[in-house]
């Protein structure tokens, strides 16, 4: 299956590898995330991070257990990442994870998200996780499309639930049974 957009765009790199993130990836992961902080409403963080400030976030993930982080790498460069994280601190929510998936802006439309999601859902199969959730700031057709391709269904829209760049944004929630 291809995730190329209609009209054609660059192909998925043939050497693309998916692997657990390591601490050495942190500057590049921060660089990718900061692009979305600074330029888009995709994330509701407002101020860019230093890699050092991102250490605490990085520490939430492990190579085993329900909270994973995988990166997609080609020619020694990380092009995107996906995570599963705690959905909510209360203990009964521990059977649910929240998804994140981001590609570097220059790597969008090359099937990287698809490969990342295939790999992370494969990993989660062994974990005591029942539901995966994803929150997407609207509009974002590409993100809605990949979640729907992976079997997520729409839960609902929280209208104007965040303010960024002096405007309010709607967030759609998706869920997927694992």
């Amino acid at each position: 299956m291809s995730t190329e957009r209609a009209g054609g765009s660059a192909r998925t790199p043939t050497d693309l590898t998916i692997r657990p993130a390591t601490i050495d990836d942190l500057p590049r992961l921060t660089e990718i995330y900061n692009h979305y902080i600074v330029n888009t409403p995709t994330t509701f963080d407002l101020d860019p991070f230093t890699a050092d400030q991102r250490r605490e976030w990085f520490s939430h993930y492990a190579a085993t257990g329900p909270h994973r982080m995988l990166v997609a790498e080609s020619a020694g460069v990380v092009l995107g990442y996906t995570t599963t994280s705690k959905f909510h601190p209360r203990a009964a929510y521990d059977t649910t994870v929240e998804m994140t998936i981001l590609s570097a802006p220059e790597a969008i439309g090359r099937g990287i998200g698809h490969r990342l999601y295939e790999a992370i859902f494969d990993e989660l199969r062994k974990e005591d996780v029942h539901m995966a959730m994803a929150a997407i700031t609207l509009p974002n057709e590409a993100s809605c499309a990949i979640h729907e391709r992976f079997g997520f269904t729409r839960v609902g829209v929280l209208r104007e639930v965040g303010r960024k760049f002096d405007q309010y944004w709607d967030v759609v929630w998706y869920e997927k049974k694992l």
Partner: protein
Amino acid sequence: MSGPNEPAVEIRPARADDLARLTEIYNFYIINTPITFDIDPITAEDRRPWFAQFAETGPHRLLVAEDTGGVLGYAGSHQFRVKKAYDTSVETTIYLAQEATSRGIGSALYTALFDALRSEDLHMAVAGITLPNAASVALHQRFGFVQAGLMHAIGRKFDQYWDVGWCERPMA
């Protein structure tokens, strides 16, 4: 609000010396119901960080309902999600002592809470309700919340999965 045979109920900001009673009210719901997704009862001491998020000014408030017999319930507004763009939203919470339900105390608390929040830079309130809970759904509908979505099987407590309905209410 109070019925003809009920003592008058006062609504006021919570104080630190309410914490033991607030914890007692909340622990009932932890132990006996899926209404909260906390699973283990909490001590008042461990509840201090929760209490510390509220103030008598600003978007994050905690009000209690009290009669001559003591605190009967509480309602609060707190951070919905950590990322800063969410700061224009609050999540609301409301708990009544088991013996104080169905006396209009929840309405009195929410009336006072939304009145207190009117001057704050808030745009939306959201509330999550473990289903089924007809009384809570009805209370939120009365205060202008509409259902935004239903998250299926999103929590596990008492060896079963529970749905949570999320509702939202404009604040501006």
